[in-house]
């Protein structure tokens, strides 16, 4: 049985089903009706579920429960200092850390919060907040958001963050200090004479390969990149893709040479290329890409898949892949992308998909 947490513009949908049956999943629960659910995960260490919920009236917060079909309770502490003029607008990401009870949350406007009590209370990361450039940080179209938090397996001191549009940030001391990791990223959306040294870098998604943690993959705002030195430098691996613009990205944790993307036309037309829904996967670190579209719509299917709406289950020969679109459609594959089936149709616009 697979449990999917699908965050949508109209609440959280908990879907249950079996990828092997290739049948649509059942809706086991719908939580937070009337509210936007930006993101939801289950922390595999504690079994606790977390959902980032934005109320149009009462603002954003992280909610938690041990039973997603039951009641949820608010967590506390995700707020900017009263003395500042920044207000939390949206909580983009929640990520288990590499120490007992440690979790991270990435928010907009861009900031990092951490919890050391299993996600019940949160505290602002002051080192990132106190960056002297912070007041000059520029938002992407989705806001000034910290969306990607790449932990280092077994080592809580090493972190990499992706911010739209303030590039990659690296820490080797658990977030006490931060520095940029942007070398090689090319912001084609800026005048060429402004490329050198800019921090206006629109990272769309970033994942670390857990078996080779110095390797990271990135979907950029025009470009797909790989780093083999823990995010210090980046090389383009977009050759062979039908387009290099997109948001979603995931990996096979058993294969450090693997990455999966879902190309969209461009920043001016954020839909699947040629009206065909195609996942592209690499198993050689981006040297070549393979189209993975068997079972996905291939005619007049102009879907938009948002950055947190693509996830994987298991690894290696048991790798499952799942993604959802703003059309409300969710697709899945139980065989690493070789074939796909419809997980569910006509949900609300999908913000995020995570396997529980």
């Amino acid at each position, binding site marked *: 049985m697979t449990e999917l947490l699908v965050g949508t*513009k*109209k609440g959280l949908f908990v879907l249950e089903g079996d990828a092997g049956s290739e049948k649509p999943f059942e809706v086991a629960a719908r939580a937070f009706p*009337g*509210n*936007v659910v930006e993101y939801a995960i289950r922390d595999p260490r504690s079994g606790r579920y977390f959902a980032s919920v*934005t*109320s*149009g*009236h*009462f*603002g954003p*917060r992280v909610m938690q429960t041990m039973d997603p079909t039951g009641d949820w*309770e*608010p967590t*506390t502490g995700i*707020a*900017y*200092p*009263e003395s*500042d*003029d920044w*207000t*939390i607008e949206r909580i983009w990401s929640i990520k288990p850390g590499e120490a007992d009870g440690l979790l991270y949350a990435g928010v907009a406007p861009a900031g990092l919060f951490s919890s050391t009590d299993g996600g019940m209370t949160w505290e602002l990361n002051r080192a990132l907040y106190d960056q002297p450039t912070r007041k000059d940080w520029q938002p992407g179209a989705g806001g000034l958001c910290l969306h990607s938090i790449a932990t280092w397996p077994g080592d809580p001191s090493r972190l990499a963050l992706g911010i739209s549009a303030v590039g990659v940030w690296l820490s080797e001391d658990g977030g006490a200090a931060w520095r940029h990791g942007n070398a090689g990223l090319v912001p084609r959306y800026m005048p060429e004479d402004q490329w050198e040294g800019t921090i206006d870098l629109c990272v769309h998604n970033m994942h670390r390969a857990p078996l080779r943690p110095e390797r990271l993959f990135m979907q950029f705002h025009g470009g797909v990149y790989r780093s083999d030195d823990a995010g210090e430098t980046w090389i383009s691996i977009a050759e062979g893709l039908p387009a290099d613009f997109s948001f979603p990205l995931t990996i096979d944790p058993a294969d450090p040479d693997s990455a999966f993307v879902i190309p969209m036309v461009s920043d001016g037309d954020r839909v699947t290329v040629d009206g065909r829904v195609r996942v592209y996967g690499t198993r050689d670190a981006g040297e070549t890409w393979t189209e993975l579209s068997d079972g996905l719509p291939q005619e007049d299917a102009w879907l938009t898949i948002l950055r947190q709406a693509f996830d994987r289950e298991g690894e290696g020969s048991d790798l499952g892949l799942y993604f959802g679109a703003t059309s409300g459609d969710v697709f899945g594959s139980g065989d690493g992308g070789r074939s796909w089936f419809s997980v569910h149709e006509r949900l609300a616009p999908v913000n995020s998909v995570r396997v529980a």
Partner: protein
Amino acid sequence: MATVKLRSPLRDLAGGNREVTVEGASVGEILRDLERRHPRITGWVLDEHGRVRQHVNVFVDGERVREDAPVASSATVHVLPSISGGNR
């Protein structure tokens, strides 16, 4: 002591109480006192800067006001989601 009247979901966060008696001379002060008495409501009505959230309406004795408005000790205060804030 002013009386704050609450609806769901704020009522649920205030232990199921439809009415809460609070102290304070302004809307901001009584809402802070509401947070002290019911900490789960912190951040829902006032943002981190002490401002009433944009899409929350506060009425004091029938008049819509913001956080700096005075509140008499006998006042009845309604805290309601505004019609503008629903997610489309």
